[in-house]
């Protein structure tokens, strides 16, 4: 597909080591395994350096034995996205995130204002730090069907699905990803910046093993688009803001027929009348629960496209702060906080990503990394899972944040029964304290009353369904 013409070819992989070294300790095991990336028990600090609230789990290991094209920055220095200068010009407060200097918020809107702006109008997020991959060739589908539990063979061209990369054997979640099928044997997928080293090592090992087993007739080409920018335009006004910029007049230029989970390769018309030199890959998707798009842009057009969108007064820049509160309200996981290699999709309440035709253990189609662990968890969760990911609302007062301990209120010694992995006062719900976390199997039913320890006080909390704010994805009208 032309839209994702590779700007850099191939990876130079020097002595990529086995990912077995980072094998998770105890799937469904100890609570500490869940919150291992939380540096402070209550995600709490003194007022000194009041910057990003949550400890950034995504700090890159300096040397994982993997080299890639754009990793030339010396250890300890932060990388910049293609839109870095624009962020600075717009008054962004920049913070280190996943090895990049990224905008937390901008001077024109507070965190809460920016959050609400996204729910009411449209916000533009720079997500260029995320890793854009293309996997193609006769072996691409088979490889992806091994490393993910998704029914990618049933995926139509130009449609996408949320999925997870899974560790062999354990089925632990290496990363979550959105995979788009561009053609019969070409896939585009986006992974987390904070998992870059681990994902590259994992994919290298899997591809090497696949090639060794299958030989040349199932060749695979793997590319990473280090130079392409990626922006997310999210909110009810996103489509109205993007539509007038779409170049051309054919049916494919009409965004009203581009539904959630679909993508198109399109050109934009810039304010000077010129057209983008290469097409953009426009996917109707996002991570805020709102209608919107993720747009993969060749580096040469990144600033021009972003500035053109920002010229629309309904579109404002938004940073990581709003992104985090928006995705939590939408019940979506943040890797390194809500999911890790210590969870499988069923224990992370992501069982729905496992393809419907990949759940019968007797079927040859049901073989993927960790399937022998995961399929029994799907069919009899009560017997196989020790903990479940659920939502909570917590009484008015101090919010329960990452690392807060969930306790049994029916027992005087307040035995620990779980741990919060994300939590904050919801801007859309007038500050209601919401959180997600893991709780002991059996206590995960909606309506269960539990306690959450916040600064040594037990706060009343209730297990609730997610999301807290209904997703407003743009779906085709029901026939």
């Amino acid at each position, binding site marked *: 597909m032309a839209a994702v013409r590779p700007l850099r070819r191939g990876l130079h992989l020097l002595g990529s080591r086995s990912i077995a070294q980072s094998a998770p300790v105890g799937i469904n095991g100890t609570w500490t395994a869940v919150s291992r990336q939380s540096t402070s028990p209550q995600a709490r600090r003194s*007022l000194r350096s009041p910057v990003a609230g949550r400890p950034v789990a995504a700090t890159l290991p300096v040397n994982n034995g993997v080299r890639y094209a754009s990793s030339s920055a010396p250890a300890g220095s932060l990388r910049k996205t293609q839109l870095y200068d624009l962020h600075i010009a717009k008054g962004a407060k920049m913070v280190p995130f996943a090895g990049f200097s990224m905008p937390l918020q901008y001077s024109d809107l507070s*965190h809460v204002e920016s959050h609400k702006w996204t729910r009411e109008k449209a916000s533009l997020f720079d997500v260029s730090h995320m890793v854009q991959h293309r996997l193609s060739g006769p072996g691409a589908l088979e490889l992806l069907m091994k490393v993910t539990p998704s029914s990618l063979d049933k995926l139509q061209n130009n449609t996408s699905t949320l999925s997870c990369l899974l560790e062999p054997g354990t089925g632990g979640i290496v990363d979550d990803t959105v995979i788009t099928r561009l053609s019969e044997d070409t896939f585009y997928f986006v992974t987390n910046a904070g998992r870059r080293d681990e994902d590259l090592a994992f994919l290298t090992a899997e591809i090497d093993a696949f090639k060794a087993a299958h030989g040349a007739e199932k060749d695979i080409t793997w590319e990473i688009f280090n130079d392409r920018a990626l922006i997310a335009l999210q909110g009810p006004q996103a489509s109205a803001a993007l539509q007038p910029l779409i170049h051309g007049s054919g049916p494919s230029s009409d965004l009203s027929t581009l539904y959630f989970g679909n993508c198109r390769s399109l050109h934009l018309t810039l304010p000077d009348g010129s057209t983008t030199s290469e097409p953009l890959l426009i996917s109707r998707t996002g991570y805020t629960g709102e209608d919107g798009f993720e747009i993969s842009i060749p580096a040469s057009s990144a600033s021009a496209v972003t500035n053109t969108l920002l010229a629309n007064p309904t579109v404002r820049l938004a940073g990581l702060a709003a992104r985090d509160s928006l995705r939590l309200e939408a019940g979506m996981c943040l890797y390194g906080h809500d999911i890790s290699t210590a969870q499988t999709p069923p224990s992370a309440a992501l069982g729905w990503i496992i393809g419907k035709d990949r759940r019968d253990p007797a079927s040859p189609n049901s073989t993927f990394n960790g399937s022998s662990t995961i399929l029994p968890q799907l069919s009899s969760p009560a017997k196989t899972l020790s903990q479940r990911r659920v939502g909570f609302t917590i009484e008015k007062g101090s919010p329960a944040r990452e690392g807060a301990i969930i306790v049994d209120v029916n027992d005087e010694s307040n035995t620990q029964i779980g741990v919060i992995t994300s939590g904050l006062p919801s801007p859309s719900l007038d500050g209601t304290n919401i959180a997600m976390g893991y709780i002991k199997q059996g206590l995960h039913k909606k309506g269960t009353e539990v306690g959450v320890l916040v600064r040594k006080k037990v706060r009343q909390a209730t297990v609730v369904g997610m999301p807290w704010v209904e997703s407003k994805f743009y779906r085709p009208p029901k026939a």
Partner: protein
Amino acid sequence: MSAAARVFRPFTSRALSQKLPLSSVRRVSPATGFPRGSIRAFSQSPFLEVKKYTESHEWIELADDGKTAKIGITEYAAKSLGDVVYVELPTPELEVGAGEPVGAVESVKSASDVLSPVSGKVVQGNSILEDKAKFINESPEGDAWIAEIEVSDPTELEELLDAAAYKETIDEE
């Protein structure tokens, strides 16, 4: 404190803030400043009223009585935190040491302890903040103080930063 002292103090205090670099007042030795009630205490009482700051972005201001003080967070801290959504207030009678939490301020994205700059015993939390946490963003160094404490030893304030020294620390950040 005599009535005379009360009459004069505001005037003296105002004059101080207008012309004196605050650091110049720090040299007063505690021995000469106390015990209170002496003539010397009167002449040096403006020092006691000077607002002090911590590197962790709290302020403390001693009241006219020389023994109670209000504690809050600085303008800089309030701005950095963003929209404050909840303030955890201390309960009266709570004994706090210098550097120990005397409350907490919660924004959507983070929670921050408010550390008592000096040791003392809590008199009250600022009840305005119970229902109106956002007030912290409007008047962090004014009416949106967080705790009132009875200071154990007012000389502890001397170890803290004056306004100029505090400003230097935030300029470095």
